[in-house]
């Protein structure tokens, strides 16, 4: 005679709850795995995913030029660039605020500030240059 041991419903539910619950936790850990992999790749490969590095080079270059050419406290109007206008309008406004300038939309301004594209000398080099025109 063979005796079969029957599991109680509660035990079965515990197993299902544990499996599905852990499955959900593992599902949401996927983003962390992806972030870790990307972090490692960024640290090991200087040319991994170039566009973000190029953006950073552009921002740092423009910011440096902004501080050098536009005195803090000036009234600044942003000249909308021909390409990627929204992007550069917002970045230049950000640099103006960081430099303590007053961003104005009307004619009452000390400087007009814009951006022009330049050829990158190396893949992670800057691809933009600041254009500043003194008005007042």
């Amino acid at each position: 005679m063979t005796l079969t041991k029957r599991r109680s419903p509660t035990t079965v539910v515990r197993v299902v709850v544990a499996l599905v619950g852990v499955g959900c936790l593992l599902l949401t850990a996927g983003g962390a795995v992806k972030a870790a992999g990307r972090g490692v790749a960024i640290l090991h490969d200087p040319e991994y995913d170039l566009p973000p590095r190029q953006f950073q080079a552009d921002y740092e270059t423009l910011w440096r030029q902004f501080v050098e050419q536009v005195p803090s406290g000036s009234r600044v109007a942003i000249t909308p660039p021909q390409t990627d206008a929204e992007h550069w309008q917002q970045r230049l406004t950000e640099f103006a605020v960081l430099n303590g300038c007053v961003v104005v939309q009307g004619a009452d301004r000390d400087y007009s500030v814009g951006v022009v594209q330049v050829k990158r000398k190396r893949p992670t080099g800057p691809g933009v240059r600041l254009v500043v025109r003194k008005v007042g």
Partner: protein
Amino acid sequence: MLPLLPPFLLVFEPAYQWDAHSIWWLHAGYFANGGEYARAAIGNPALLFSHTDYPPLASAPAAVVWSVVEPDFRTAQVVSALVTFSAIAMLVYLVRRTLHGASARLAWALAAGVGLACWSTASYGVAGGLADALWSAAFAGAVVALLLGADPLRQPLLPLLLLTVSAVSKNEGLVAAVGVAVLVTLRARGEPRRAALVWLPVLAGVAWAVLARLLGARSDITGDGSGRVAPVDLGAVQRFQLTVSALWDVVGPLLAGAAVVALLGTLFLRRQRRATGLSPDGWVWAANGYYLAVLVWTYLSGPNDIEWWLTTSVDRVTLPVIQLAVVSCAGWVAVAFGGGREVGPHPVRDEPPKPVLSGATGQAGD
């Protein structure tokens, strides 16, 4: 906390995230230039795109650092990331503390799992200089302490601090904090004086909202701000369908799995849950359902082009939904593995807990 370190390596990513620059570091810039400059900037129509009505906490740490050293985006990114990481660490700690009825190893593993979920849908959010992971981790931590634990208001300082972080980091965080305050007030209806504490974070968030309005800030949600207006006005039904579809793509499978776990647990493991020292799971789901409903309503009623709006935000604003779903799962997994075990002394308590709230152990309706 060790499992949280590898994904944090993304802090070495170039500082290029759009919202970090256009919103949070721009705000840090005007705060670093002093109160008078900041007041003028908040009401400046040229900064409309920057959501100057957003609360100040996510920008404040970078502003403090920039008032000492020259503004630099890499510094701002590291500072923002460290602040967000500290909120995630507090969430992990509170999950571990609340799951004291499970074995220490299991509780830590589940807490780490909840922490890792902060990178789930928007892995760039934690270390990229954005505020979404900060407020949602703080919000989830407050929910864990105030709604998952059996005796939440006994040690209220940390959860109230986290709820304040949520309320003064982003507008969604304030709305979410209101929901938690309502739920905690319901739980603690026998002790209104203690429950009133939970409205302090809401008060802080509302104070900022009023101040920003007085200074001239405008909001895209209320239709007078910087959003992208739809080229064609879609009807409410179409907006609803697009919203639900986008939400399902991001959180649907997880919510379905978590709902199965919660349903099975509620039907078969309630006694074991009580023995593990957790409150009924309905409180966490109520907080999650409330936030999800607010999210859907916001997408339906907002003036922005719905397709653009969903594409640019749904992965970030659903973070709290994911975190609360995994908090629910973690609670039930702890019950499934260790339920029925008598709860020993709480590792951080120095006296037996008092059952204060209506949903607490021994008072639950189940």
